[in-house]
């Protein structure tokens, strides 16, 4: 079963006995495709961006999980890595960038600053106390100050798990 070994999420795929045909639900194939090509937005705000760059470079090689295509435009992205301190002045910009991303979209809050304000929680007038305060739904939090590149890779794998195990999304309109 060489095919099964190569494809992540292969438990949802079955070879037709004795043949060369693969049987799978189209939903599962879509989830596999979505999770395997998460294009991140180049959005470094502070020192966490250095670790994000290291993650993209050859030593850690984010390309092997299909997330190495950092795009400059939010319209071509699937996942926003909030890498660093979110200042009050940057808040509107962050929300605008998130709104410009096409669905399905995901957010990784990288580092303590984007989780809660981090070391800027106390005695700071200019730092937003966590990206979720802005109404941006965060899928994966990565703690650390800054997190290691391995942590960011782990966050991507967690996000892939989340996508693959997601129940089918139904909007409120469909339920009625």
């Amino acid at each position: 079963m060489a095919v099964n070994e190569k494809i992540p999420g292969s438990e949802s795929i079955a070879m037709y006995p004795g043949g060369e045909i693969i049987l799978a639900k189209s939903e599962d194939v879509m989830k596999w495709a979505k999770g395997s090509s998460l294009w991140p937005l180049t959005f470094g705000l502070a020192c966490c961006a250095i670790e994000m760059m290291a993650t993209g470079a050859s030593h850690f090689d984010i390309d092997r999980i299909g997330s190495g295509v950092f795009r400059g435009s939010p319209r071509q992205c699937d996942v926003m890595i909030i890498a660093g301190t979110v200042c009050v002045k940057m808040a509107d910009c962050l929300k605008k960038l998130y709104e410009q991303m096409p669905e399905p979209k995901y957010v990784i809050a990288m580092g303590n600053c984007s989780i809660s304000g981090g070391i800027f929680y106390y005695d700071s007038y200019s730092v937003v106390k966590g990206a979720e305060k802005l109404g941006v739904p965060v899928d994966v939090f990565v703690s650390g100050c800054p997190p290691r590149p391995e942590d960011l890779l782990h966050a991507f794998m967690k996000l892939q798990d989340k996508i693959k195990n997601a129940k089918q999304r139904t909007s409120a309109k469909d339920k009625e």
Partner: protein
Amino acid sequence: MQNSELLLKIKSKFPEIAIEETPAGLVIPKASLLEVSRFLKEEMSFENCHCVTAVDRRDKIELVYLLYSTLHHFMLTLKTFAGLDDPTVETVSLLWRSADWMEREVFDLFGVRFLHHPDLRRIMNPDHWTDFPLRKDFKNENLIPRPQSKGLNKA
């Protein structure tokens, strides 16, 4: 020229200034800031303005200018004071261009208005803010004070 000679020469020109020994500094009245600055730049060759900053002394705002002379290899601190309600002072950005953005920063954080400044806008904080974050009386809902530690002895 010795450093002390340098200070004495300035003092002899402007008798109203006070000399601070450490670090080498001059405290001048606000009214003579431009006059002293022009003298320092044009005749004492203090051609670099390294820093403009301010200190909130609760009853007044202290403005600090760091000037450097490459001829004498000498760093001079120039201090003057502005009142706390509606602090104004003359700009030195027309003498030293480097003071332009530093004065904007002081305006942004302390609310000191620099008269005749070419472009006095906020430089870092959002434009719609009306208060000044580094003032001692600054209050903001976003500003959470750090809780005081009880120390190790008290459980």
